[in-house]
């Protein structure tokens, strides 16, 4: 049952571009490895080779000492190697059971053996702690449940090596806890786990050993116990990263708020929410997934119906019924769902950047030169690295996010709302984004940061509003910000008045 993996001089080229430059290391059974590296370091490509999605251009993959060549991911699965994608790979319209047996359906003669599939699925789901009904459609599950389904599915296939790519990106703290517990159990059963994450605190907590890659090369490996987070980050980036966050400027003096929200109710999502945002302030929003933070702001933007409440910008009451009206009143919102709501990934960088401000480039026909200039400016100002002629999808996650931020800043908003601004972004780009947010505040804008990364809220914000079950439960000032405090408010165990 053991599964010993060795990479030997793995090279991968896409066309003329070499992505992996002869990577070699090995993985022992029953251990949890943290695979570290910035976006573009080659981690995902290497793991896709291991899971049979790509074939190496040169080099050998050895399994228990024997060279292995997978033609596809099914080949890898039969050897017990399963990759759980960052964007989960489930068919939304099928039920949990149907997904788990997709491509491996059990049959009785010509017919599907529904009963046996449901039983086996239910058993596997119970093992991973999934409490729902195996006949639910995947569409109706929350992300954390989908994750459990993926793991249960891997278990059904007798996975001996699980690769998890950013598994906690959309999970709440308690859901993360459950996942970590599960990882511990799998490890005790002798399953090898390769854990890819940008969240170094998690890596520190659950892995036995970290392996660092950079620029398509293996850099080093070390037991997690002797490697502090700061060291991990330095190894990944290749330079010192002592200061992730800019120095906090003094909170702005109380004065006329830039944005005043009073008694806003978004039916089903937020009830009677009120807050102020002052010029130059960075205001955080913490809470579990489903607490209603994103939906509150979609309501403020006019994308969801509001049943009550008033909104004032700069002391003036405003009626916001669409993102366009919000933009005209100086408020823009960058969604947490970058590919679904933030950027047109199939369109070019320029078209993405200027979409909100086409009027500025029309005289009345659009002037490509003027748009080009805007792009050049944004590339320089936001440090967007990538082919400016390519489509947005060709950029790495961090650069896509910088482009998205540039896009929503093009209309020059006075109030800028960022929802999960560093999701799926590597350490270097994260730091860039934090400094950018501080700069926007220093320019006198009001910035709202909605985030599930508490470190981020603590490091950046002047005040943090915590939501739980559709309501604001606390407003925590800078000096009292701590992970314990925020979690306590978010899950409702806070006892202090």
């Amino acid at each position, binding site marked *: 049952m053991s599964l010993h993996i*060795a990479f030997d001089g793995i090279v991968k080229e*896409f*066309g003329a*571009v*070499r*992505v992996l430059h002869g990577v*070699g*290391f*090995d993985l022992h059974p029953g251990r949890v490895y943290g695979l570290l590296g*910035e*976006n*573009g370091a*080659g981690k995902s*490509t290497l793991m896709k080779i291991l899971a049979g999605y790509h074939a190496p251009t040169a080099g050998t993959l050895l399994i228990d000492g024997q060279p292995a060549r997978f033609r596809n991911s099914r080949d890898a699965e039969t050897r017990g190697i399963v990759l759980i994608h960052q964007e989960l790979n489930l068919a939304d319209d099928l039920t949990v059971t149907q997904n788990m047996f997709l491509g491996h359906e059990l049959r009785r003669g010509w017919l599907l053996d529904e009963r046996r599939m449901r039983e086996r699925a239910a058993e596997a789901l119970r093992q991973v702690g999934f409490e729902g009904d195996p006949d639910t459609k995947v569409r109706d599950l929350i992300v954390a449940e989908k994750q459990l389904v993926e793991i249960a599915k891997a278990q059904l296939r007798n996975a001996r090596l699980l690769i998890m790519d950013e598994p906690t990106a959309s999970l709440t703290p308690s859901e993360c806890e459950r996942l970590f517990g599960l990882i511990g159990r799998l490890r005790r059963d002798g399953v090898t786990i390769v854990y890819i994450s940008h969240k170094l605190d998690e890596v520190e907590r659950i892995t036995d050993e970290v392996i660092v890659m*950079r*620029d*398509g*090369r*293996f*850099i*080093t490996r070390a037991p997690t116990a002797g490697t502090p987070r700061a060291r991990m980050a330095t190894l990944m980036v*290749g330079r010192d990263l002592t200061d992730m966050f800019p120095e906090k400027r003094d909170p702005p003096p109380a004065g006329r708020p830039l944005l005043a929200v009073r008694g806003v109710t978004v039916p089903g999502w937020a009830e009677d929410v009120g807050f102020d945002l002052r010029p130059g302030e960075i205001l955080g929003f913490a809470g579990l997934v489903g607490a209603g933070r994103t939906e509150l702001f979609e309501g403020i933007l006019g*994308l969801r119906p509001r049943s009550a409440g008033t909104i004032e910008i700069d002391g003036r009451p405003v009626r916001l019924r*669409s*993102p*366009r009206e*919000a933009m005209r009143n100086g408020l*823009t919102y960058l*969604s947490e769902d970058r590919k*679904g*709501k*933030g*950027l*047109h*990934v*199939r*369109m*070019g960088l320029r*078209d993405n950047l200027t*979409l*909100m401000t*086409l*009027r500025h480039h*029309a005289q009345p*026909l*659009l002037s490509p030169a003027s748009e080009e200039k805007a792009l050049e400016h944004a590339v320089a100002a936001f440090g967007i*690295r*990538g*082919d400016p*002629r*390519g*489509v947005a*999808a*060709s*950029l*790495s*996650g961090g*650069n896509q996010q910088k482009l998205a931020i540039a*896009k929503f800043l093009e209309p020059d908003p006075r109030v800028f709302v960022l929802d999960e601004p560093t999701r799926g972004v590597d350490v*270097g780009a994260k730091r860039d984004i934090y400094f950018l947010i501080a700069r926007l505040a220093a320019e006198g804008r009001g910035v709202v940061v909605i985030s599930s990364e508490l470190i981020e809220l603590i490091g950046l914000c002047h005040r943090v509003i915590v939501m739980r079950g559709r309501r604001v439960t606390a407003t925590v000032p800078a000096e009292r910000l701590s992970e314990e405090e925020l979690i306590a408010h978010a899950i409702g165990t806070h006892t202090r008045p």
Partner: protein
Amino acid sequence: MPSAPTPVPDAPVPEARNGGAAPAKGAGRSAAGRFDPHRFGPVIGLILLLVVGTALNPDFATWDNLMNVLTRTAFIGIISIGMCFVIISGGIDLSVGSMAALIAGAMILAMNALQPLLASPVAVVGLGMLFALLLGGGFGLAHGLLITRGRIEPFIVTLGTLGIFRAVLTWLADGGAITLDGDLSDAYGPVYYGSLLGVPVPVWIFLLVALAGALLLNRTAFGRYVQAIGSNEQVARFAAVEVDRVKVLTYGLLGVCVGIATLLYVPRLGSASPTTGILWELEAIAAVIVGGTSFKGGEGRVAGTVVGAVLLSVISNILNLTSIISVYLNAAVQGCVIIAVAFLQRRRP
């Protein structure tokens, strides 16, 4: 057995980083943005057809024949340009053929009714043409409102009106034909049969509509919004694009295009009957898709649409000019050519 760490330079290497991120998902596409031989699939197909046509019958390459083909393409071509916008925005309109028939019928009835009231037949024809444009625009806006405000799938809305328009025309015509009065027919004739610098009027108008369409799609905010909505409606909505308004306008624009096509069509036969415009919707959609526009929306080209429309009529023209293939197989030849051209301009996965 950890292997020895490879020494690496301290500074990150930008090329390698970008290179590392890009190829996994988007290198092929970013290259496609620069030069894509598949873009020219429809043009290559058209050139091949022209060569084949000339080889089979020397009369094919005559000016008169080419003008005949372009003139008869004008109706479908103009509708296709409007259709191109609708399809790029992620919509569809199945009703254009029926809409053209109803506009033609209503327009003829209106002109016949106006004739005794106005002295000048030219004025009557002018009013009739204006009526056609307004009617087309009105039908299109109605589609747009039903689709956006009514939240009904465009396929269903326009499938419904496909039946409604044709039924109303058939009712107006009592199942027969609606025919334009003689005097008006003479005054109106030049709009189809006349020419300017040796090029028939409908071809000029086709050209103008195509140029205006290309400009609108590529060089105006409206055109960019249409592409953005088709590419991803949610993203466009979050980026402060007034999605509903833009969608309504695309259907309105298509309606106006149908109006233009109809006002060119009516003087040809001077009549409208229940067979007018039959299957035009499929021809227009085929021209758009053969021309390289994605059926899923987001991406499309006006020039390609024009080439696609011309290509479709050239096929039937060549078949009419030769008898090497059994007439029973005409539709099969058209089908093969359409699939072959689609193959030439297919997208990479």
